[in-house]
Structure formats: C-alpha cells, structure tokens
C-alpha cells in the first residue's frame, strides 16, 4: 500500500510539488495501478534473466543475421561537431548569451 508519506517522498525524488488535490488523487491512482501490477507476483521468475532491451535479445537468440555482438553500436570516442553555441542557447528560458541562467544555488 502506498501511503501519503510515500507520495511526498516520491514527488520529492521526481522534482514535483503537487497540490493537495493532486496528492489525494495520486494516492488513489497509484494504489489502484500497483494493485493491478501485483499480479506479476503470481509468476515464479527465479531463473529468468531480466530483459532490459530488445537489441540484446536479437543478439543472443540468433533471431536474425547481421546483429552479432552489436559491434556496430560502438564508435570511436572522438570529438565531433555539435550545435553552435548560439543555437544551443536559443531555447533557453534565461541566458546571458554565454551561459544558462538559474536561480541562485548558494546563499552567501
């Protein structure tokens, strides 16, 4: 069971504030969805490896040719051109033309 305290803790981790109404609703929804998710515990998965992504599976299963080792997914760690400075700052909510500006982090 998710509690009010859990909702506050998780909201904090997720950088969300949430209004009182949102918290009430969130508590109800999380419990309803997690209750449904609990049916996964009907399965014994002791000897099943976690599957984090599809690509690793294509590699091991021989489902297709040309994917051996996924060596092609690796590239040399070399500098490459990136967005021009001006372009990268174009969407910034606040900038001084050189840096992104944010509220003061350290109080003196």
């Amino acid at each position, binding site marked *: 069971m*998710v509690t009010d305290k*859990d*909702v506050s*803790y*998780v*909201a904090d*981790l*997720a*950088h*969300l*504030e*949430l*209004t009182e109404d*949102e918290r009430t*609703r*969130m508590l109800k*929804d*999380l419990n*309803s*969805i*997690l209750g*449904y*998710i*609990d*049916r*996964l*515990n009907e*399965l014994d*998965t002791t000897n*099943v*490896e*976690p*599957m*984090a*992504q*599809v*690509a690793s*599976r*294509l590699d091991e*299963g021989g*489902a*297709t*040719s*040309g*994917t051996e080792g996924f060596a*092609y*997914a690796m*590239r040399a760690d070399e500098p490459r051109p990136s*967005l021009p400075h001006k372009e*990268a700052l*174009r*969407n*910034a*909510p*606040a900038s001084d033309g050189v840096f*992104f500006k*944010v*509220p*003061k*982090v350290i109080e003196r």
Partner: protein
Amino acid sequence: MNIDLLTVDSARTAVLEKQTTATALVDAFYKKIDAEDAAIGAYLTLCKERAYQQAARVDALADKGDALPPLAGVPIAVKDVFATKDVRTTAGSKILANFISPYDATVVARLEAAGAIILGKTNCDEFAMGSSNENSGFHPVHNPRDHSRVPGGSSGGSAAVVAAGTAVASIGSDTGGSIRQPAAFCGVVGLKPTYGRVSRYGLIAFASSLDHVGPFGKSVKDTALMLQQMAGREPLDSTSADVPVPDYLDQIEQPVRGLRIGVPEEYFGEGLDPEVRSAVEAGIQELAKAGCEIVPISLPYTKYAIPTYYVVATAEASSNLARYDGVRYGARATDGKTLAEMYRRTRDAGFGAEVKRRIMLGTYVLSAGYYDAYYLKAQRVRRLLASDFDQAFTKVDAIVTPTTPTPAFKLGEKMNDPLAMYLADIFTVTANLAGIPGISIPCGKSRAGLPIGMQILGKYFDEPMVLRVGHAVEHAMAG
C-alpha cells in the same frame, strides 16, 4: 483532382506526369485543412514555408524532367514528437509549447530527402502517453469517422489526418500501441516495425526500450512505401539495427496460400467486444479461403503484458523526463526562489495529470526497496512475454489478432479511470515488449459504422510477411 483519393503512389505519379504540381497539391491540402481541421483538431502546427520550399524543389526537378525521388510531392504529416528544424516541436506538452527544434529527426530528414512534403505537426497525447489523445496539453482530437469519439492515441492526430484526407500519409511513434490503436480507431493502416528498424534519433523519448517509429497510410502498400524510406541503420541511434533493408513491395502481392497463420486464444477471450470478434474472425476466414492454414496457438503470458508494460514504460519515462527542468529549454516557472523550487514549479505547471502520474509511478518502482520487486520483476516477465512469441513463431509465419478490444470510445469515457484507459492497449503492448513488427489494418465496421482493426504480428525484421498478409486481408475484405 480529387485529393481525397490520393495515395502515396498516385500523388507522386500525378506530379511526375504533370497532371498537377507539388505546389498545387500543397495549396489544395492547406485549403482542405483550413476548411476541415478545426472540427477535428489534428494539426498543432502547420509548416507552410517549409512545405512550399520543398514543393518548389520537387517542381523544379519535374520541370527539368529529372528523375523524381520515390516520395516526390507526397504531402505528409509528422507527429509532434519528432524534432523538425526551425519548426515548433511540442510533444503535445505545455512544457515545450514554444520549443523550436534546432535539428531534424532522422526520419524527418529521410522522408524529405525522398521528396515528401511535410504539411505540419500533428496533435498527440502529451509525451505520447495516452490511448485517446485526450492527454494533449493543447486540445483533444476528434475521430474523423465520428466526432463524438476519440481517434485513439497517442498518435491520434497522425491517424486522423490520414482518415480525414488532410494528409496522404503520416508518421507516428508507438510505445505500447500508439500507432496501431489509433489506426484501428480511425480506419487506416498503421505499421510498427521491428525495434531498431527505424532510427529514433530526434524522437522525443518516452520509454527508450519500447519506443518505435512507423508510418500511417490509407493502404498497406502506402505504409510499405513510407517504411522503405524510413528504415535502415543510422549511427546516431545506437540501437538502430545493422540489418539489410529489403524491398518492401517485393513480396507484398505474393499469394498467401500455404502460409501458417496463428490465432492466439488469449486475444479472443473475456472483454472482447462481440462485433470486433466477428469482424476479425471474418478477416481470418478470408485468409483461410485464400489457402492459409489457420493454427490455434497460445501465448500464455499475455495477461501479464499490461502490468509489465506499465512498470517498464513508466520507469524509463521517469528517467527520460527528468531533463524537463526549465534550465536549457522549455517553459520555466518564474516563482521559484531556489533552484529546487524552480524545478518543481516548472514541472508542476508544465506537465499534465497523466504525465505526472507516470513519472510518479516510474519513480516509485525504481526507488530504493522497490527496484527488485517491481522493475527487475517486470523485466523478467518481459522476457517470458518475448519467449511466448519465439515459441509461437516456430509454428506459424504470422499471428493475427484484434488490434483493440473495442471500437473507438466516446471522448471523456475513460478519462477518470487510468487503469481502464491502460487496458485499451491490451493487445498491442506485447509487440513493444518483444520488439516484433505489427500492423493494424481496417477489417470491417461495427453496426454503428465504427472502424475495426485487425493486427498482424511477425518475426523480427519480417516486415515483408506482415505487409504481405495485411495486403491479402485488405484486398479480400475490399472485394
């Protein structure tokens, strides 16, 4: 020229044979959009300048008598989760309401290089999270076949423009059914290729191990022509597969006689609308008449797909959406006094209810003490779900199911019950978890005239088989 009848092939031919010009086509489509889209709400942004520039390039080629690229002059729409250079790219979210992308997604660049003309960006559920398009941060989309009903989601706008004829074809993203489910609801064809078949570079990430890019079209052949230009290895997406791209039209018209078609019992059980059942069974009958062997199969872990999906997808989403913090791009709340307060207020104001719900759920299942019980557990069950398909595909060439348990539901019907909304994806999430290709094709209508979709699933990289079976059903049902 009646633009409602245009297909990918006929639009290009019309330009090639000088029956019209690309510029005239763009004019005609914008006129139709101006007249008809307000009632549907499928477009969020029109990119007229870009469209007319591209049309002028195509017309210049046609004037010179040069060879035209494969999608020359084809007016398409792009779901607003794909980055489009110098064009607003919102992901359906208020937090990106004024975001102008500095670069193009790979699929966008490829389709334009192939001559396609991008008319605009289509509405969607916020960050592609939803099954009805009602989670758009801007406005909902109405189903062109019945305006009181949802178009499905999350790529609701991209399905609706093809159904309404306000674009010839379109692209969408599919994380748990977001191409196939709206295709079924709107009565068009929607294709989710194999994971890794199409580059995700420039697709705004929702759940990276489940996100797929694919086309919508009026016919199976149109989606094949679109995929042909979209598919292929690209280094900017390290999960894009280094597997040769076949000619997707090569086998599309081959007879289906002798193919083994699996029909999984778990997709025809409780909760399936009787009209959907009989429509899909009629489609299966057509395959039997065409000489396919219909093989009853079982995919025993199916009932665990939705719970698995909502752990994996929300966990990945909570991580992917951490970047929206009001610092580098996107909206920023101005009332935060400290940095942490600025983050929280920005995210509180910028995200809608469903996005917050998924971030919360995803953060919860990844948090200390729950990681093993939820996240790792779901990843283990994900492997079981994938192995269900491995075993099935030793016995059959393709699998046929309903795309959705019901036809399009009413706007507002499921908005207060997130779990009921999640169950709209019950037949589509399995292909995302496994990474196999799937297509939804129109397969009859309900008595009320609502479209019904049939889903065809194939082996990894066997899009040619999925297209071939889809084409056969499409033509049998039309005949």
